[in-house]
């Protein structure tokens, strides 16, 4: 896949819109997931993910082809999201509740099409709960947890995305894991 992406990047650098469209289609879920899990609501997540792709397109000349494209793209997405979280910090705790509800809304929209069996509703509630607990983590732990357990990046890749040493990544994962354990052990 990496070689296909490399080929696409070359075409994008020559101004090929169609090649970029393929790249967006390929990475959209990953990027959206990072934004959604970190910011917490789907409206802002969509906006941030779109912005991340647009930044990647306009700065494509700055991308070093020897590096991994996904790492670069995820870095843009996480940086944008962390910036957004910082800006809205004052009302962060106020709308934490709203964020959770939004997550619930998303799942209940799914449910609108067909009635879900009892156990699935239960698991949806659980998922909303987990989503909320991840969001309750401080952003620096949240980003490593999302990248590690939802996007399944290696420790080295996370270090590259966040531009921090691997040792720091490990420490944050350990603390994030302990924090989540305390919140989720009663589930």
């Amino acid at each position, binding site marked *: 896949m990496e070689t296909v992406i490399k080929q696409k990047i070359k075409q994008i650098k020559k101004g090929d819109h169609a090649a970029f469209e393929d790249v967006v289609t390929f990475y959209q*879920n990953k990027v*959206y997931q990072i934004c959604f899990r970190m910011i917490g609501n789907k409206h802002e997540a969509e906006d941030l993910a779109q912005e991340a792709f647009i930044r990647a397109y306009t700065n494509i000349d700055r991308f070093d082809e020897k590096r991994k494209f996904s790492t670069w793209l995820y870095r843009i997405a996480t940086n944008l999201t962390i910036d957004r979280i910082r800006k809205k910090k004052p009302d962060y705790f106020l709308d934490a509740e709203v964020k959770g509800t939004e997550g619930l809304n998303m799942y209940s929209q799914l449910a609108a099409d067909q009635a879900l069996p009892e156990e699935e509703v239960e698991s949806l509630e659980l998922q909303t709960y987990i989503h909320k607990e991840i969001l309750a983590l401080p952003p620096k732990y949240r980003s490593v947890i999302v990248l590690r357990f939802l996007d399944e990046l290696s420790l080295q890749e996370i270090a590259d995305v966040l531009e921090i040493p691997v040792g720091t990544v490990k420490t944050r994962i350990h603390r994030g894991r302990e924090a989540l354990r305390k919140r989720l052990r009663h589930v």
Partner: protein
Amino acid sequence: MDCKKEALALMHKYLDDELTQKEERKLRGHLQACGQCQKHFHELKRTISLVQSSSQVSAPPDFTKKVMERLPKEKKRTNYSRWFRHHPFLTAAAVFFILMFGGVFSAWNDDQQVSVSKQDNLVIQNQVVIVPENVTVEGDLVVRNGDLRIEGLVNGDVTVINGEILEKENQDNPLDGDKYMAYVSGDVNEVNQVFEWMWYQVKKTVTNIFTLEEE
């Protein structure tokens, strides 16, 4: 084993997939002996599987389309720079022409003041250079941004740039009369337009080159 420090560190190392076989044996031995740590370890593993079980979210269905719509129209600048990069020779040629024309135009616009080649006995009055009667100018005469009236004699070529040669009152057109040739013993050039000026420059350069060769 110290539960708080050593065992906990081993647990996290295990969860990071970084445990050596020796460490793994050590951890396993401790977990079998210590109920507290076993519980803690179990909770950690469960936490991770809970987080991982939360379903993968997908981008909205029209996500790609929306991104493509928001994409900035290719800027003219990037178009140009790309073109330049792909056509280095034409770019060099274009730059050369821009500099050349720029040089010519700035030389043309440089000063709008009357200037005249260095010769004695010339009179300048209201943008008009006069070769007075009874005066013979030796050498080529060049007048810029002004008119020229010849009442005396010029022993060489006459060039008037951005101006014209004025007739003396009640005199025939000096340019096509035999009489005129009496005043100027050489070629007469009048240059009024930028392009003529350029042509004049080119001609001058070429003439200089050939003159040098002849020498």
